[in-house]
């Protein structure tokens, strides 16, 4: 078991899959010579050469569409978006083409593409570069979305995504890139659609994904130490497919649920999770479900305010106490 960073875990996943399958290509802006805008693909050009690691122009609709077309013919492209915020200029390709082609062809065509890159706020870059489109994209049948929170999950989910025969969109987080964690040396995958109980508890279930998992784990520590509350933290890992059973099993145990995500609240992932809990575990609940999301405004630039706009440990603790009241 090696201790490596989230960034290194992603890179290791891609390196192993590049070695395993010669149809895998890495493509995106600055992924090759520049070694990646966030250095996730560092060293891959040197190891695999320019046929496998391909720099693209700043042309998301063009190169993402190109990757989708190539995947239809059996290439397995792993496309980097420098930010998921930039996916919006390629939305037609990402949704209409990748998401619909299998359906509209009656199952004749598959689209085994991975699109990956950071999707997070909290980096003091303003509204255009801080989007978290996992809920928007996961609302389209035909698309899969995963949001790893730890190095272990980042590697395992990335490898599963590359081997998956459907379009899988991997939402990373620039703030997590340097986080370290234990990652097995041997080959493994984290299957899509399997949540992970990151902390076991009995009094309250917190459901989170992405960096909100890390925030929630810190909040859980405080809740235990300062308030004597035992909190269970369920990391969704995968938004679509969604592991409904793990969420429900936890709620049936604790009878209270707090949902935490870095999205804005309206039509966020947790709106779906809240619906799930009330429809399948209503009688188990001892209190209304609460949510902590980003404050509902475009992402503010001012760093001090942005830290307050997003779910933070203080907000999660305060909201948890309301659910427990």
């Amino acid at each position, binding site marked *: 078991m090696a201790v490596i960073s989230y960034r290194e875990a992603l890179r290791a996943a891609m390196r192993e899959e590049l070695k395993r399958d010669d149809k895998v*290509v890495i493509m995106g802006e600055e992924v090759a010579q520049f070694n990646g805008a966030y250095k996730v693909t560092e060293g891959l050009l040197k190891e695999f050469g320019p*046929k496998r690691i391909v720099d*693209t*122009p700043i*042309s998301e*609709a*063009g*190169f*993402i*569409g*190109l*990757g*989708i*077309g*190539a*995947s*239809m*013919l*059996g*290439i397995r492209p792993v496309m980097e978006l420098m930010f998921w915020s930039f996916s919006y200029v390629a939305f*037609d*390709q990402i949704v*209409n*083409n990748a998401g619909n*082609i*299998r*359906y*509209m*062809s*009656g*199952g*004749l*065509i*598959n689209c*085994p593409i991975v699109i990956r890159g950071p999707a997070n706020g909290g980096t003091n870059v303003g509204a255009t570069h801080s989007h978290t489109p996992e809920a928007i994209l996961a609302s389209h*049948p*035909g698309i*899969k979305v995963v949001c790893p929170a730890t190095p272990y999950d980042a590697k395992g989910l990335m490898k*599963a*995504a590359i*081997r*998956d*025969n*459907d379009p899988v969109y991997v939402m990373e987080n620039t703030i997590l890139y340097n986080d370290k964690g234990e990652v097995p040396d041997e080959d493994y*995958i984290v*299957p*899509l*659609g*399997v*949540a992970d109980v990151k902390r076991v508890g009995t009094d309250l279930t917190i459901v989170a994904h992405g960096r909100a998992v890390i925030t929630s784990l810190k909040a859980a520590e405080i809740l235990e130490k300062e308030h004597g509350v035992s909190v269970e933290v369920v990391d969704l890992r*995968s938004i*679509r*497919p*969604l*592991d*409904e*059973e793990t969420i429900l099993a936890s709620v049936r145990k604790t009878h209270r649920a707090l949902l935490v995500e870095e999205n804005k609240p309206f039509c966020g992932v947790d709106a*779906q999770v809240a619906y799930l809990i009330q429809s399948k575990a209503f009688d188990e609940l001892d209190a209304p479900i609460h949510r902590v999301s980003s404050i509902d405004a475009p992402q503010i630039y001012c760093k001090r305010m942005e830290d307050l706009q997003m779910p933070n440990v203080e907000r999660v603790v305060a909201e948890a106490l309301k659910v427990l009241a």
Partner: protein
Amino acid sequence: MAKPAVLTHPESLKRPAGPSEYAKNPVNASMSKADKIALYTKMARIRHFEQRCIRIYQQGKIGGFLHLYVGQEAVAAGTISLLGKHDHIITGYRDHGHGLMVGMGMNECMAELTGRVTGCSQGKGGSMHYFAPDKNYWGGHGIVGGQAPLGTGLAYAVKYMGLKGSCLVYMGDGAVNQGAVHEAYNLASLWDLPVIFVVENNGYSMGTSQERSTAHPGCLAKRAEGYNMAWDVINGHDVYEVRAKTAIALKRAHEESKPTVLEIFTYRYFGHSMADPDKTYRDKEEIKEYREKKDPVLAFEQELLSEKVLTPELSLKINEAAMAEADKAALFADESPDPTVADITKHIYWEEDNRGPKTTSRGTIIFE
């Protein structure tokens, strides 16, 4: 401001009808009598299929949009007749002609239009979304220009796999103003991809004439120069000319792995779709003139009659057979069942349709 020099659609009308100056071009001269009859037959089949669709649409059996290819037959016929094992095609929503040309059956095409489970996409795609990947036909795409990056990617895949092939990316004249098309042009040229962008210029992007939609340096194909790509213009009523000039682009793709933009002047006889009453933006005389002087199917028939490849009797037989085939397809579509409610949630995910020990997905993926 001076009106820009525009090679609008009616310009192509100026080329006199009559025997094709490309009949002796090697790519045409090398065709056997049987090849020529087969090509004519395919064009006639597209014509009769589309005309049969009008009746079915008017009977209310075809929902949504129906964009007919009548008048444009020589474009799909000429280009696709040249293709080999590793040549692929992709197009926009006016996609029936291409489908029939690659060898899709009238039955599966007609049943798709009426939303039957026997349709090529099992009733899930409709008129704008025909697919036959086993015949290198990758659709059938509903969003103007959205197929251009996909086709460029197909060509990329062909090149990546070391195959001598290409992808022909068809679009209408309205698509040339879409960003996705320009991005595809740039990538195709930058990476030396074996793509042929075929602009089927029928003069109108829906109801907006080319003069009212597009700023350009004389013709749409010339925009290729901005991307350091070769280009050519073609009279689309002459299937021999389409073949002769497409063959050059195809050779460039196969032997140099370089892209080309071909602008093919053509014309549609019916509205943009059947929902277009076709009364506001063009003169009936314009349609009449093209039909009388430049009809691609009749022009090729005349050509083959004068070559003594075709006789009036044989031509009649071919056309009657195509009409009968379209009638049978209409009956097939009528008699075929709808997909079921359970079918609605199939074919969304490969992993869901094939769940087993080897699939990487668990959990709920189709929601209530």
